[in-house]
């Protein structure tokens, strides 16, 4: 019996080889996670856009509010300024003392008269702080001034800085200003401006201001110079300044919710793909581990099943062995009980033979038959015993001719069978267990008799068979055997005879094998059988 094989080697085992690519579950998980990632990225992108648009709308309203405020104050200032400056014959001097009064209502920082100089404009005269005569104005202010000079109306400038503060300017050409010049009124972007706008509120926005009929925006006139059309998403708002309709359009110069937020979709996409990779990897690993474990379980189950089968086989063998042991005990007991009466019968037959008339052929034949039957009965008992509890041979010198003569005298030939054993005379002795070899020879001779019910010839021959080997042949002229019978003849309990248990040749083969010898048959139907034993020759050692 083996111990439970908990230490059976598992090294060198591989998971099933058919998982070369990803498992279906892993593919499914990957697909689901990637799809979810795409949806999330798309959703995030839209969310950010919505947020930006909402912010833009809010900013637009704020800007509109501020501009409304600023421009309204500038317009009122400009109205009073206009009357003051409209002097016959032109106006070269700008009364510095008038400046504070000018800015009374709107908090104006500066009032200036701009005149064309080359491609730009320079300040001809200025009141307030930040602007001085002769100074060139910035390009964007100059562009507004050109528009004011070319067409009557009031224009706002882009935000510019005076003394480091953001201001918005209101520009007006003739008739408000002297011919050939533009009046500029610069006011700080303050007042009720939301705090977010106070520190550079326009740095993040493109702002386009139009004046015209709001109902027909395509007819609007651009009030300040800007890159047009505005880039990216825009928001717009219309409002009234005095009697004029104004149209404000705003676009974000920078993403309103921050550059990182703008890429949130990509981040979600990247993160999701990474997650998909991780989850897929994890699923695959767990799955493969599972497969491996299942394979292991299968293998173990197979091993257990094999062990069980082995156990069942062993048990069957044990049962067989026990049965054989029981048969052996029975055979031994029965054998003992039979051998004594057989011995008595044998002795009685001897005495009968002694006291009968040796010339009486009929009596002699009957006594031969009785002797042969006693020998056959003894042989059955011996074979059964030998089969059930075979023993190791006790090797000694056995003279083949003596043994053959004894066997033939114990089991005399039936009527009609001629026996020739002249060939055994002078054969070398063999190293054998005499009782066992006698049993083998009795089996072969008895079988030969039984193979010739109609009579025939039994020939026993012996002689050297190569160095150290002796050959003994028992040949009959009986029915012979076909190949099927030949193949089965040494199997236990196989018999073609009407009597006997079919152990004779099985036991003989086993005995010969235990003697380091061989037994072979030469036979075909109709041409008799020859059994050939080859045994070790006796070389002088008494005991093997």
């Amino acid at each position, binding site marked *: 019996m083996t111990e439970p094989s908990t230490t059976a080697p598992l090294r060198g085992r591989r998971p099933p080889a058919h998982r070369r690519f990803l498992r279906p579950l892993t593919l499914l998980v990957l697909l689901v996670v990637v799809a979810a990632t795409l949806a999330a990225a798309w959703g995030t992108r839209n969310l950010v856009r919505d947020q930006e648009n909402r912010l833009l709308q809010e900013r637009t309203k704020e800007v509109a509010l501020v501009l409304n405020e600023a421009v309204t104050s500038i317009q009122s200032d400009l109205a009073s300024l206009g009357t003051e400056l409209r002097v016959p014959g032109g106006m070269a001097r700008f009364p510095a003392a008038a400046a504070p009064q000018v800015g009374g209502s709107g908090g104006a920082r500066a009032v200036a008269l701009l005149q064309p100089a080359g491609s730009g404009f320079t300040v001809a005269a200025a009141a307030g702080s930040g602007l001085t005569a002769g100074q060139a104005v910035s390009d964007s202010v100059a562009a507004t001034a050109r528009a004011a000079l070319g067409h009557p109306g009031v224009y706002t400038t882009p935000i510019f800085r005076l003394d480091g503060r953001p201001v918005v300017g209101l520009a007006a050409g003739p008739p408000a200003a002297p011919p050939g010049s533009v009046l500029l009124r610069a006011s700080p972007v303050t007042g009720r401006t939301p705090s977010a706008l106070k520190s550079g509120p326009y740095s993040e926005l493109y702002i386009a201001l139009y004046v015209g009929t709001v109902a027909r925006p395509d007819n609007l006139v651009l009030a300040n110079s800007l890159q047009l059309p505005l880039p990216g998403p825009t928001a717009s708002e219309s409002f009234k300044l005095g009697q004029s309709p104004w149209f404000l359009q705003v676009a974000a110069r920078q993403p309103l919710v921050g550059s990182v937020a703008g890429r949130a979709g990509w981040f979600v996409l990247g993160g999701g793909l990474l997650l998909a990779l991780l989850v897929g990897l994890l699923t695959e690993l767990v799955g493969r581990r599972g497969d491996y474990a299942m394979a292991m379980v299968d293998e173990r189950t197979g091993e257990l099943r094999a062990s069980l089968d082995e156990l069942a086989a062993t048990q069957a063998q044990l049962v067989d062995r026990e049965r054989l042991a029981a048969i052996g005990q029975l055979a031994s007991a029965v054998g003992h009980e039979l051998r004594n009466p057989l011995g008595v019968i044998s*002795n009685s037959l001897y005495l009968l033979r002694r006291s009968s008339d040796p010339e009486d052929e009929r009596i002699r034949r009957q006594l031969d038959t009785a002797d042969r039957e006693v020998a056959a009965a003894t042989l059955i008992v011996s074979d059964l*015993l030998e089969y059930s509890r075979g023993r190791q041979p006790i090797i000694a010198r056995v003279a083949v001719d003596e043994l053959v003569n*004894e066997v033939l005298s114990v089991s005399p030939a039936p009527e009609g069978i001629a026996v020739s054993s002249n060939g055994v005379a002078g054969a070398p002795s063999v190293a054998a267990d005499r009782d066992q070899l006698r049993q083998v020879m009795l089996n072969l001779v008895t079988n030969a008799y039984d193979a010739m019910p109609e009579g025939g010839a039994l020939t026993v021959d012996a002689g050297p068979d190569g160095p150290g080997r002796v050959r003994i042949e028992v040949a009959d002229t009986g029915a012979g055997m076909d190949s099927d019978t030949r193949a089965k003849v040494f199997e236990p309990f196989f018999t073609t005879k009407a009597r006997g248990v079919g152990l004779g040749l099985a036991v003989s083969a086993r005995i010969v094998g235990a003697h380091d010898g061989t037994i072979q048959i030469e036979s075909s139907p109709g041409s008799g059988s020859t059994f050939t034993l080859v045994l070790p020759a006796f070389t002088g050692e008494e005991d093997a």
Partner: protein
Amino acid sequence: MTTVLVVDDEPGMRETLTDILEDAGYAVVVASDADSAMAAYRREPVDVVVMDVRMPGRDGVSVLQEMNGPPPNVIMMTAYAVEERWREAMASRAYAMVHKPFQARYLLSLVESATGRPA
């Protein structure tokens, strides 16, 4: 006259052996167990003993071992195919060992050679 002591618990075996040996010209004394065998051995001048190994009470090998002094030749008989006492019997100087059933002629030849002379 050569005397043979036949020891066997089986009456049939005792009777037929007696007849066979007497027919061959020997004087025969019989015993059916170990004690009567020893008594006969001490009482009679026995030349050869033919004795069964297995008998009720003490067995033949113990009788063989008890027969000390100038030992007669003892031929042991057994009805067992595998006799565990075989080696012990041979070690106790049994003259021969025969398996039942045996050929009467074979036994007679053994008795003859054991006495060293024909009956």
